[in-house]
């Protein structure tokens, strides 16, 4: 009788894949992690340049709670502050979200909307925003931002895109007070899976976000195999039976994929269940990072720019993490919504930098004279687009998974959801025990069938 249990195959050596393998290990299941690229970490990579500026790919929000769960908190520094404002005019930067209540026209229209409008179908993002926040705030702030990072008009987006602010007003005020009192960047609404609390705050690991991936990878029973792209996932009777990785077929009954869901669909052999996810679109980002002299150039760490700027968000990360840039220098990140092939995506690096420098004046008047250098990154997987067009399929993926037994699509790109690293972690912690049990059950059944075959052949 066969005693070897086939391993669970994890596709992708980014944070989601590594955490999946970590949780599988805790559940007593061996996992093999295959990464197509030359190194682990994927979208969670970090590096420090020759001038002493440190970068991650994109923005990540990491809490002391998440780091404690991984046993990494001792290697982290606490962020002394974090805040967001909305740029309405050169002088007006209401703090998000409470400060927006200080703008009379927003309050008036929000109240009016509540009084006037009867409940109706709110499945479209534009309607839902106007209903929830009032027409003025929606049209002047929320919808332009949503459209910029989604790349679609708000009347073509699903309202489910906004089910993502888990903290209420009173709690937000309380958490802000705690932030002031403790001088720590208390997390407000950056985790969907677990609640905000005064004792949960933003931290940042030494070595950047990549250090988290390295720490998790170091704890795995088997090293991650890099340069091993997944080519096929074999199914039989709507159940995973194997994978083909870098030209090699491997038998398995369980695959955990962190690939973008629309890419995963292209690997499936023997089933068309995932075909409906093929049309899912990710919105790309062009990220322009300006290295400047000076510090605290912005009114707060993040400035949302719904109007008058070609980018939708400007971030000065060294305000929250002073140690990621040399003293008296800073980094300003401008984020453009873009799509591979469109005009913004096609800009040269010089054009992109010039477009930022020439438009940042209202926020940083002397930006040109401060400029030390810049880098440009094009990220095709910025945001999953919650298009109305495929909303039923998106909801089905969220509720039921892939529809193929033993095939689990996880992580931000795999689940096609607006989740951050910590959400991915807690979701995996909840999901993996059932996946491990299923894997075990199938393996036992398979080996006992094999055992029967063996007995017959011996007889």
């Amino acid at each position, binding site marked *: 009788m066969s005693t070897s249990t086939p391993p669970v195959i994890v596709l992708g050596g980014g944070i989601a894949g590594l955490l999946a393998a970590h*949780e599988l290990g805790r559940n007593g299941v061996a996992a093999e992690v295959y990464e197509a690229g030359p190194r682990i970490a994927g979208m969670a990579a970090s590096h420090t340049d020759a001038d002493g500026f440190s970068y991650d790919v994109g923005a990540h929000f990491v809490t*002391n709670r998440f780091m404690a769960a991984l*046993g990494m908190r*001792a290697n982290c520094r606490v962020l002394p502050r974090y805040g967001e404002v909305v740029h309405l005019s050169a002088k007006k930067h209401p703090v998000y979200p409470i400060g927006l209540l200080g703008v009379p026209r927003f309050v008036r229209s929000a109240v009016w909307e509540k009084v006037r409008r009867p409940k109706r179908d709110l499945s479209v993002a534009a309607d839902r925003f106007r209903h929830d926040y009032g027409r003025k705030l929606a049209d002047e702030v929320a919808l332009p931002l949503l459209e910029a990072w989604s790349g679609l008009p708000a009347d073509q987006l699903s309202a489910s895109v906004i089910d993502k602010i888990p903290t209420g007003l009173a709690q937000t005020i309380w958490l802000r007070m705690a932030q002031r009192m*403790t001088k720590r960047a208390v997390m407000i609404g950056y985790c969907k899976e677990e609640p905000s609390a*005064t*004792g*949960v705050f933003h931290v940042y690991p030494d070595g950047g976000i990549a250090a988290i991936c390295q720490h998790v990878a170091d704890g795995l029973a088997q090293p991650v195999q890099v340069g091993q792209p997944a080519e096929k996932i074999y199914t039989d009777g709507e159940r995973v039976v194997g994978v083909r990785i870098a030209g090699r077929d491997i038998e398995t009954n369980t695959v955990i994929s962190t690939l973008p869901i629309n890419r995963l669909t292209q690997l499936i052999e023997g089933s068309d269940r995932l075909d409906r996810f093929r049309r899912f679109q990710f919105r790309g980002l062009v990220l322009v990072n300006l290295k400047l002299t000076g510090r605290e150039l912005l009114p707060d760490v993040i400035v949302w720019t719904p109007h008058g700027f070609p980018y939708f968000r400007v971030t000065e990360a060294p305000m929250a993490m002073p140690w990621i840039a040399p003293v008296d220098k800073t980094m300003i990140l401008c984020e453009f919504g873009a799509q591979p092939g469109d005009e913004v995506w096609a800009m040269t690096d010089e054009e992109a930098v010039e477009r930022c420098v020439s438009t940042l004046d209202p926020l940083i008047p002397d930006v040109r004279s401060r400029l030390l250098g810049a880098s440009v990154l094009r990220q095709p997987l910025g945001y999953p687009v919650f298009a109305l067009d495929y909303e039923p399929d998106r909801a089905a993926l969220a509720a039921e998974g892939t529809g193929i037994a033993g095939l689990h699509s996880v992580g931000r790109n795999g689940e096609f959801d607006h989740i951050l690293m910590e959400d991915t972690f*807690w979701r995996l*912690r909840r999901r993996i025990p059932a996946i491990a049990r299923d894997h075990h059950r199938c393996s036992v059944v398979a080996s006992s069938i094999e055992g029967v075959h063996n007995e017959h052949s011996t007889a």
Partner: protein
Amino acid sequence: MAADERESVTLENVACCICGGVDGTPVGVGEDFEYHTTSHSFLAVRCPRCELIYLDPRPTPASLPVIYPDEYHAFAFDEEQFGLVHKVRSRLEARRLLRAGRGLPADAHVLDVGCGDGFHLDLLRQHGPKGWQLHGVDTDARAVAAARGRGLDVEEQPVETSALAPGSIDFALCIQTIEHVGDPVAILRAIGKLLKPGGRLYLITDNTGSPDFKITKGRHWGGYHFPRHWNLFNKASMRKLAEAADLEVAKLSTTTSPVNWTYSVRNTLVDWNAPSWMVNRFSLKAAPALAAFTAFDTAFTVIGRGALLRVILRRPQ
């Protein structure tokens, strides 16, 4: 000190000690607010089935000498240092112990598991029947040395490997010990084996069903005692623990203690960088705070939600 000790505490992931699950959900996160033995933070999680609160990850056994420093209060709770508080606590605890031990034979064998410096055994020796045979076990050499210094009969080892004869103990104590150990089920099973059939175990531990826990569980609850309390119970998880260890629950109630309340306040103040004169109002040496919280917690004990669980378990006949 924290910087030097940074590397010396290593962590390991663990499962729920009752059901073996590894899907605990986060409840609180905090640091060693009291002794600052490590710069790690610790996560308290709740088992979704058992309601057990446990640290995951937690320090490895090799880290124990670091997280229990020499000045740790269980090794150094003496009359000289703690004066009035020591007197009051001694009197209260002696009364509680003797009440729990009522009806025992005159020559009963009593075992204190995790006896520390022998504080409770000493109380029994002073206030209990003279015929009782008193034994103790503890794994910490410093605690055992202190207890032996008092002239007590104490073994330096875990109760699982005690040299005492199986079925020889009438009455076992496990006072604020179970929360410190890695495998409470194994400890209770071992105690069960040492007990005579029908013999009783008197167990005291922090109560996660208390209002103090409810209010401060996110970070500052005194009962976390980060990172030294590894498993914490309420009435429901205590019943499950007893069941897993094949012991009967004879009595399950709560009792009053000001300690967790005091430390919840103190930890909050320490964490929020309050001035030291304010922090020092809340400690084991601060009689006014202890008195006030004793009165306060007594009210919660009346409605069954005192700071400590008070449990009497019995080895089935």
